[in-house]
């Protein structure tokens, strides 16, 4: 049942804070504050509620308030041998969901958009709205959580989410080799958690049972000389989203220095990604969506996930 109970006082307080009238935005960790345009100066900043509401490891779900730091979420999950697909870069859970960017190890942990099972947000009218459901499988009604992930808070201000968690693998190892075909590397192992390529070197994150990792490393040794490393390379500042085939065929001449996620298509590059235009018919649906959810344009004015 989505009917709110007395334990949801923090949500009601947040809704009251958001109110119904003036331009408004939620301030999280501020780590992705530039994405999607500059927030209009008239917007009042509020903070989302914090804290973990409910965690049942055997259900592989956690209910957490949007203002909770991702680091805190992962600390709690880690104690139970679990983790989530949210990126850790100093921000909040709500910020990570509103931005919707996935981690480097998406292949291992899944995407952010697949992790959000239920979302509670405050609407432009100041009401608390629930979309989705608190269990791992649910097709009850329209998929509002998917719409909220990556929406930059332009359709509603996220207050609380139920996230899918997954078990932390027993073993985990980054390895690196120079001058190997990164796509061949990806295909030589069953489920690498990450394959990164900077145009010359390839990094692989292998996770699972120790013996299987040894087996995978052996399989990869026929492709190149891999050495164990502490982690992924440093990432250039800008983020591109490309079809995986294009990401695997990048050149430094086009984007400058880069780190591409093989099999995924996210590219971290020295140069900014070109502005992306929506297909006109999609722009019409998008505009209608925004107008229906936020008729007065008060939610995160100035920002848009279309860019």
């Amino acid at each position: 049942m989505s009917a709110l109970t007395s334990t949801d006082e923090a949500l009601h307080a947040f809704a009251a804070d958001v109110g119904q009238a003036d331009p408004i935005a939620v301030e999280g960790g501020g780590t992705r504050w530039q994405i999607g345009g500059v927030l209009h100066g008239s917007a009042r900043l509020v903070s989302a509620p914090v804290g973990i509401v409910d965690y049942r490891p055997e259900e592989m779900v956690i209910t957490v308030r949007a203002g909770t730091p991702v680091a805190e979420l992962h600390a709690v999950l880690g104690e139970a041998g679990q983790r989530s697909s949210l990126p850790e870069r100093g921000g909040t859970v709500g910020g990570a969901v509103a931005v919707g960017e996935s981690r480097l190890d998406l292949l291992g942990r899944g995407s952010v958009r697949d992790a959000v099972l239920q979302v509670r947000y405050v609407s432009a009218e100041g009401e608390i709205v629930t979309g989705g459901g608190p269990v791992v499988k649910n097709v009850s009604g329209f998929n509002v959580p998917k719409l909220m992930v990556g929406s930059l808070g332009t359709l509603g201000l996220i207050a609380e989410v139920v996230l899918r968690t997954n078990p932390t693998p027993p073993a985990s190892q980054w390895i690196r080799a120079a001058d190997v075909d990164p796509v061949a590397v990806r295909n030589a192992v069953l489920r690498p958690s990450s394959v990164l390529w900077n145009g010359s070197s390839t990094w692989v994150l292998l996770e699972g049972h120790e013996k299987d990792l040894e087996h995978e490393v052996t399989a990869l040794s026929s492709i190149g000389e891999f050495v164990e490393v502490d982690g992924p390379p440093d990432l250039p500042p800008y983020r591109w989203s490309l079809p995986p085939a294009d990401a695997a065929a990048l050149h430094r001449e086009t984007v400058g220095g880069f780190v591409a996620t093989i099999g995924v298509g996210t590219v971290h590059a020295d140069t900014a990604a070109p502005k992306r235009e929506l297909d006109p018919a999609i722009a019409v649906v998008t505009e209608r969506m925004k107008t229906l959810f936020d008729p007065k344009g008060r939610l995160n004015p100035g920002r848009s996930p279309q860019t």
Partner: protein
Amino acid sequence: MSLLSRLRRRHAPADPLVVALQDVLDPQRVRNDGAERSLTSHDASVFAGGLSGPICFPTTTAEVQAITRVAVEHGRAIVPRGAGTGLAGGAIPLGAPIVVSTGKMNHILKVDTENRVAWVQPGVINLDLSRHLRPKGFHFAPDPSSQQVCTLGGNVANNSGGPHCLAYGVTDAHVLAIEVVLPNGEAVMLGGLDPEPAGYDLRGAFVGSEGTLGIATRIAVRLTKNPPAVRTLLLSFAETRDAAQTVSDIIAAGIVPAALEVMDQRMTVAVENYVAAGYPTDAAAVLLAEIEGLPAGVEIDAGRIGDIGRANNATGVRQAASDEERALLWKGRKTAFGAVAQVAPDYYLHDTVVPRAALADMLEKIYEICERYDITVMNVFHAGDGNLHPLLVFDARVEGTLERVHAAGAEIVRASLDAGGVLSGEHGIGVEKQGFMDEMFSDADLDHQNRLRNAFDPTCRSNPGKVLPMGHSCADIQALRAMPTGVWG
């Protein structure tokens, strides 16, 4: 009827809608006779059929666009239809809509194993795709029980699941891009092959929208690499509760099997009588656990699952010794619904989800409810997801039975909500659970779902009368059940 009047009838002015459709489509692919319209008035559920308008069989996106434009010009609704295997009434035509069958859009357009994506038309049958991919070492992960006949377009519309969605996720985790003909006739690409397409996740909103946001005409699906090692375990239990507890304990131990399926005794007996798959018929419940991945981890997890079962009083732990034995166990599981025919002529297959920890209590509740209504119930379900499928078997010819079946079903749905669950895990809302939507969602929640729908379909053109309950736009069911003016019976 006199010869003259028969001749007159044959030459009577044709319906202008049919004429317009035959103008944009090969006339052979516009069907309007009573027998065909009667067939498309139902899906595979127990719900009363609707009223189908002309049925079109397009082969291209452009033809779907042309049909949609005819619908717009004639003020008629439009309903996409795959194989008609839906169990919630999602494809039942209301308001004499134009029915757009995807039956002739059944081609696998492109398979790119290097980038793990295939482009398919919506009428491709789920299992046909996986069969096509098998020699290349890949498969399409969602595997609904109806996979031998259901279509990928239908899987997208319902966000279908299946036994192997426990580890891999349901359809929306395996759909990258969808070409959609919007209810105004425009064709757009939702999502993309890149991981973070610009704008709102309209692809995510479309998957599972039950045909209410437009018609998928091309789908880019993710391919999953076949694992090198697979182990299938069959655990038997004298108490159903022990089987349910084993499921919870496996997940709590940090193991995510590819599948965790439970069948109760009535179900295993029916399955054994039907296909003799090797299930023990004396166990109160059996748990089918499948682990796949790399060999060492699979061995370790198979051992741990056996141990967890034995700690929960399993009376038998058996590992399939060969591919044949494994295939036979799955054949038994996947033909469960066919096996029911020998028990009673009719069945109503329910679909709810509860938290895994609530499974044991929920099963007892289901038995109690069905006993109270004097209905035979059999259980076969995706235990790892907490996704229950109580199968109420009955003979609809016995007066008053269907009413008791519906009353028992309603109690089961409400008990699932009370246990912290949801209305549907994979069948959808359709017409089946519209009446329960306001028990799971508040008015504000439903209003926002309605806004999402309206952004795609402001004129309620696409599959009206579904998902959202009365009181929301596109949901005036009574009006849709009535025959629009100018429509023959």
